[in-house]
């Protein structure tokens, strides 16, 4: 029964790989931190990071889906914010201060997104497919493995640096996409307020 609550399944199956006993972590160990998601995930990452054979870790139902759900939600929120931010600030792209602010904030959101998606794919990758949902999610694995190579969730300094670089580059890409309809625009913030004033008064 206890095994069903384990967040990391360390049981040997007929085709499982060798398990490093030092990396065994039961759900009871991390339960006090479970309310604080970030700490739990940190602990999970530390545990996985200490393991010499990470593929042996199987996160059991239903706990693994709580992680998946949390990471998916954070990914969706981050991507949405990045898109929203790109769309909102694209009007001000010729204003240098707004451009820098936009880039910084977008880069942060994209960074979180990439790490979150990489983590989701990591969890999917290192768990055997046991249901149709698993099999469906495994479809992400092929492309996800490429992303994982670039942004390893172990967060060593190299992969972190690569992720930061990719985040900044992706933010530039957001600006290209959202600024494309506005190329040729020449105005400052004051003119924009004046135009909004005119249109507001036409409405009334």
């Amino acid at each position, binding site marked *: 029964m206890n095994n069903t609550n384990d967040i990391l399944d360390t049981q040997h199956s007929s085709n499982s790989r060798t398990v490093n006993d030092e990396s065994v972590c039961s759900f009871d160990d991390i339960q006090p931190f479970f309310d604080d998601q970030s700490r739990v995930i940190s602990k999970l990452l530390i545990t996985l990071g200490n393991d010499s054979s990470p593929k042996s870790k199987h996160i059991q139902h239903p706990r693994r889906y709580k992680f998946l759900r949390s990471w998916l939600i954070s990914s969706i929120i981050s991507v949405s914010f990045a898109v929203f931010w790109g769309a909102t600030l694209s009007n001000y792209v010729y204003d240098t201060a707004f451009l820098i602010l936009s880039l910084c904030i977008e880069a942060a959101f994209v960074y979180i997104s990439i790490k979150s998606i990489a983590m989701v794919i990591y969890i999917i990758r290192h768990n055997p497919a046991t249901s149709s949902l698993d099999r469906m999610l495994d479809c992400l694995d092929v492309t996800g493995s490429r992303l994982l190579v670039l942004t390893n969730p172990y967060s060593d300094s190299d992969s972190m640096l690569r992720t930061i670089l990719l985040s900044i*580059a992706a933010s530039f890409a957001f600006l290209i996409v959202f*600024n494309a309809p506005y190329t040729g625009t020449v105005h400052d913030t004051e003119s924009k307020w004046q135009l909004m004033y005119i249109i507001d008064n036409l409405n009334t």
Partner: protein
Amino acid sequence: MMRRGKHTYNLFIWLLTIFACVVLAGGTLGVVLWPRTQGSEIYQHYAKISNVKASFFKSYQVGDSVFIDVTMLESTDSAGWETLKNDFGIKPLDDIINQAINNGEDLISIKTMPKFHDGRFAHDSNEVKDVVAVSRKFHLVSVFHVKNNEEKMRFYSTT
């Protein structure tokens, strides 16, 4: 042997990351720095006049569904306002309305005008006229460059 292979693989991943970054960042810089004709003809005309401040908005969103190019002209002194009044045929107002404007009220009038070509408003029966809004208080002229009658109708219904 294994170590050298891993080292090569890491180098490859780094090169791939840098290549992706250079392509994305280079593309953005290219878009920003590429020389292009900015603004409308009317914007380019008034950008050269010292006492008129010209601005141009590409695909400005009005309401939910109308995306329209707008040229904004603001006179920076009385001579500039006289230029705009002459060019756009802005008629003088009654004393009562002038007094109200002097007391801080504003009057925004709207009219249609032929499109601006080759330094003048050239009437062409095949072209849809632009919509011009004038703020008497702030000495502002906004030219909404409508592309066709359907867009003009949607613009009117939004405003």
